[in-house]
Each structure stands twice: as C-alpha cells, then as structure tokens.
C-alpha cells in the first residue's frame, strides 16, 4: 500500500562522480559500494518499494555530468543524485536539479557556493566545504606562525572558493597573502608554479587544489627542495586516500582536516572493516559521507511517506543526522549539514603501526565553528 506513494514503484538514487580521473581515489567506485551498504543497512526497501543505486562517471566535466543527470531524470526516473565530486559538477547538477525539482546531496565537492549564492531548496551539502578546510588546516598553520601565504589554486570554482575562504581566514588572523597562481585541473608539472611561490618570499604555500593535483605538488615541492628553507605546505584538501597514495615518507607531518577517520572509535573501526572487505581500502570522509546521504535520504522518504521532492526535502531539513558518519549532525536552512570536524597530522613512517595507521588527531573543530552560519552564507533561502 505504501508503494503507492513511491513514483514508478522504485526509489532510484544516482551516484555521479569521478571514476577514472584525478579525483577517482577520492570517492570513485568505492563510493558506489558505500551507497549500496547504506541501502543494505536500511533494509533494501523503503515504503515497500525497492531501492536501486545507479552510477556514472562524469570525468570531472560539468557538461558531461549535467547531460547524464538530465537523462537520468528525463528517461530513467532517477529520484535523487549524490556525491557529485568536484565543485563545477556539483554546481551544474544542483542547478539543473533545482530547475527539475530533484534532490541532490553533495559529498564530493567543496565550494560553499552550493549552500551560498547558488543554494537550492533541494540541495544538501554533506562531508566538508572550503570554509571548514580553511578554518581547520588554514587555522592550524596560521597558529604555528604561517603568516605569509602564497596560493597554488586549481583553476575552477572549487579552487577559487578554497583560496578565497582561506585568504579571508588568514587575513582575519593577521596574516598576509603575498600572491597566488592558478593551474589547470590535472596539471602535470607544478615546478614553475612552485618556484614562483618560493621567490615570493611566502612561508606557507597553500595548495588550493585536491586529489592527485595536491599529491603531485607535494612531491615536486620536495624534489625542488622547496621545504628545505622552512617553507611549509598547506594541503588544504587532502584525505586518507591521497595520503595512502603519496606514502607516509612524502606526506609525513602534513596537517589536514577530515570529518571522519576509521581509527577514532570502535564503531568507525567496525564500519571501516566492512567497507574494506568490499573495496580493499579504508574509507575516507567522502565514502562515509555518501553512505550517510543515502541513509538519510531513505530515512527522509520513510518519514515523509512519499518520494515527492518537496516533502522529502522538508524532512531532510528537519531531521538530525545520526549514523555511522556523525552523531550530532544537523541541517541548516541553506542545506548545509553541520557536524564536528577533526584536525589530523600525518604520522611519520616510524610511528605508523599498520598499513592504514596514518593519522594523529590534533583537535576537534566544533561544527558551528567549522561551518558558516546560514545567515552569513549569502543563500537567498535563508533571508
């Protein structure tokens, strides 16, 4: 009887992310597994209707992503889309979904515009954003004397947003930004940018990029001896997956911000173990975040008693988030899910006790410090 409330008798959730490019380790195919875990944990059905996960690789191209999304909505009856790695993609798909009245829940993108200037009543932002990263990683370095920053910025929405937020934060703490340079997504050689940064006299090089781009920049900085004179690198967005790829030798000592770490408590360890059994690796905050969005979406459908967008969105706005991802999450009116973030430092190789033993926790950043207030976000919905 319930199934009557579900359009076309099935709830379809699309996982749209980068499965082969520079951000493939970030979420990628493993996130699809995380989503399936959520469906399984929820019981496979909602309101009596089966739940189905579809996925696609958007190659980090917003146009590819939006035509996949369009086709999903128009011909495949997909009800909501999640993960949306890369800010340009997330903005495009959230914009399209707003027009099409569909729910999007972003875990793989960072720009605060998603819940700011370009917010949507049906758009939700999980996991992290540039503000949280600026406050977390940026804040930690400023406190340790990093007061002259030079940015190496990925040339698209995410990079700008991360640079902007971090600069603002650095300046607010009395620091100074001595320059910045933009590089295309998936650039291969950072040496000339790094030399520019070095000759600017900065003591912190802010890497406002992500994924392999950051990893490569870190490696090349070591190659050119950039860090030998005390210049520090701020890997503003760096997760467990990339640390693993880079290796502790090169990554040791980096400070980074994440919202979830497998070795924090027993529940996390248990979740991570299940995840590892399916994918062969430990999850990072994006994988678990996607798990959480699928779970929360299904809970919301259950609560609303229908998969109709307005009703589900209303439920999502109202419900607290409490699952494997976080214990104290809440959704702001602009769609931002706020929860506690953590500041970690990458262990030295000799400190590590196992393959995945990589972080030392430095601090907890309470949710309302890490994230902007809805009223400051510039989102029209909140005024």
């Amino acid at each position, binding site marked *: 009887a319930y199934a009557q409330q579900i359009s076309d008798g099935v709830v379809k959730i699309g996982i749209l992310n980068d*499965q*082969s*490019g*520079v951000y*493939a*380790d970030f979420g990628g195919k493993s996130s699809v597994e995380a989503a399936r875990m959520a469906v399984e944990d929820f019981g496979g059905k909602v309101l009596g209707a089966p739940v189905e996960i579809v996925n696609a690789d958007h*190659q980090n191209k917003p146009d590819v992503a939006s035509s996949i999304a369009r086709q999903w909505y128009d011909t495949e009856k997909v009800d909501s889309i999640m993960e949306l790695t890369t800010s340009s993609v997330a903005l495009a798909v959230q914009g399209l979904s707003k027009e099409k009245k569909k729910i999007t829940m972003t875990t793989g993108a960072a720009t605060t515009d998603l819940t700011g200037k370009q917010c949507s009543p049906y758009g939700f932002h999980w996991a992290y954003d540039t503000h949280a990263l600026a406050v977390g990683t940026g804040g930690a370095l400023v406190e340790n004397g990093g007061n002259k920053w030079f940015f190496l910025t990925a040339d698209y929405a995410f990079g700008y947003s991360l640079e902007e937020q971090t600069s603002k934060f650095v300046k607010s703490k009395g620091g100074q930004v001595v320059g910045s*340079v933009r590089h*295309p997504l*998936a650039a*291969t*050689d950072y*040496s*000339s940018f790094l*030399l*520019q940064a*070095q*000759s600017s006299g900065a003591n912190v090089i802010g890497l406002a990029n992500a*994924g*392999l781009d950051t990893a*490569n920049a870190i*490696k090349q900085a070591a*190659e*050119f*001896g*950039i860090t*030998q004179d005390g210049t520090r690198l701020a890997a503003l967005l760096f997760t467990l997956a990339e640390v693993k*790829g880079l290796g502790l030798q090169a990554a040791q000592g980096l400070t980074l911000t994440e919202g979830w770490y497998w070795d924090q408590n027993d529940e996390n360890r248990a979740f991570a173990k299940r995840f590892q059994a399916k994918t062969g690796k430990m999850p990072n905050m994006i994988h678990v975040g996607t798990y959480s969005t699928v779970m929360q979406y299904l809970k919301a459908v259950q609560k609303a008693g229908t998969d109709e967008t307005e009703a589900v969105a209303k439920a999502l706005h109202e419900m607290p988030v409490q699952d494997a991802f976080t214990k104290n999450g809440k959704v702001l009116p602009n769609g931002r899910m706020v929860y506690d973030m953590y500041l970690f430092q990458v262990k030295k190789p000799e400190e590590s006790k196992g393959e995945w033993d990589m972080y030392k926790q430095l601090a907890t950043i309470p949710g309302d410090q890490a994230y902007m207030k809805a009223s400051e976000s510039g989102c029209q919905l909140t005024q």
Partner: protein
Amino acid sequence: MSTIFGIPTPALYGQILIGLINGSFYAMLSLGLAVIFGLLRVINFTHGAQYMLGAFAAYLLLTYAGISYWPSLVLAPLLVGAVAIVIERFMLRRLYGLDPLYGLLLTFGLALIFEGAFRHWFGAAGKPYAPPAQLTGALNLGFMFMPIYRGWVVAASLFVCLGTWLLIEKTRLGAYLRAATENATLVQAFGVNVPLLLTLTYGLGAALAALAGVLAAPIYQVSPLMGSNLIIVVFAVVVVGGMGSILGAIVTGYVLGVLEGLTKVFYPEASSIVIFVIMAIVLLVRPAGLFGREE
C-alpha cells in the same frame, strides 16, 4: 636580491631552466615528428600516444616484471618501436600515395584507440614512477635547487637530438633517408629497400617518442592522457621550425621551451598560449617556418 625588469634573478633563472627541461621534451618529440613527416609525409598524430606508451611500458615493466629504469630506457622504445612497425606495415603503408590527410586521420584514430584503451585499463589518473636511485636528490645551484633527474633529462635529450641529427645529416643511411624524401621511387630503383627504410623510420620516430616518454615518467607521472595534451604544442613547434626540418625541430623545441619559461615569469597568464602566438607570427612572416624550405 638582484632583479631584472623587477623580477628577482633566481626566479628568472629557475624558470629558464624549467623551460629548458620542457624544451627537451618538445625537441625530442618534434624531432621524431619531423623525421616521420620528412620521409613518410605523414603527420603522426599517434606520436603523443607513442610517448604515453613509452612511459607506460616503463611503468608496466617495473610493476609487473621488476625491470628498473635503466633497462626500460632501452626496452620501452624497442617495444613501442615494434608496435609502430606493425602499424606501418599493415596500415600506414596502404595510404602512401594518397592525400596525406588520410595518414593524419589514420594516426588520429590510432591515438584515440591507444589513449582510450589505456584510460579504460588504468584510469585517467597518473601513476607515480620513481626516478632511479642514482638520480634522486637535487643540486643547489645557488638560485634554485636543480633536481638531478631533470638535469639528466636535459643532457639525455641533447645527446639524443644531436645523435639523431648526426645520423641523418652525416651518414650513408641518412643520405638514403634524405634522398628518399625527395624521390623514394628512384632511391628504390637504385637497389635500396625503401619500404624497409620507411618502416624503420616510422619505428625510429616512434621509439624517439617512447624514449621521451620514459624520460618523462618520473617527472610528469604516467598517465594515459599525458601525450594528447603535449602533442598539440609539439605540432605548433614543428610548424614554427618548418615541417620536416630536423634541425628546425630541435632548435625550435628548446627555444620555445625557454620562451615559454620566460613568459611564466613576465606574463604568466599567457604562458600556455605563447607558443601558438609565436606560431601565428611566424606564419605571417615566414609561412614555411623558420627552418623550412619554401615549396
């Protein structure tokens, strides 16, 4: 700190050096293209893919066979050269005598196949490839740290370019090559096995690309798309140098690399287009390219 036009000299030298390193790759790749174009009249669009294949060959040899950098430096070009020979024998050969555009289109299709297949198997993301232990570390040049590996790349590429140039300009085999460029049939009518020569030339050009790929692997990572991004710039280098001119390809490669480096200092926004701007200017002033002969 001294400055030139308001730019600190260390930064300037550093960028010139990096330009020279990039120029080494331009030179090696455009050299291979020029050799192939000179003799076969084929614009080898697969060149970028062959460069990528060289890097992947080194990566795969290391990962699956435990063969290290130094042997790969020889093995990878041989492997890629062998693949190229197959391509020449079974495909390119059928297009000789037709409009050269067909050669361009064929090699374009092949490039898509190679890149697509490797992207499918290995993903678009780069694979790390460590430089050989003998070449790790950096030299402090005073104005910058020069990674030893990159210094090696410049030296190796100069050596290869010079060697190829001497081979073509100063040897008997080179004389066959140059003569066959002008009139292949007649050279064959003298008893030279020109079809074999063509096959080997294509193999050699591809092997040069692959060698560049192996050299590039520790610097740029091994990725399926590493060639396709570079190849267009290399085309521009070849146009500027003068299609088919060996010396033109080499000199222009280094010079444009350095110019690009300088642009990064003085006007970074233009650095990715400076080579094309130079190309446009050269076309206006000397349509045949700097070292090219007017037809």
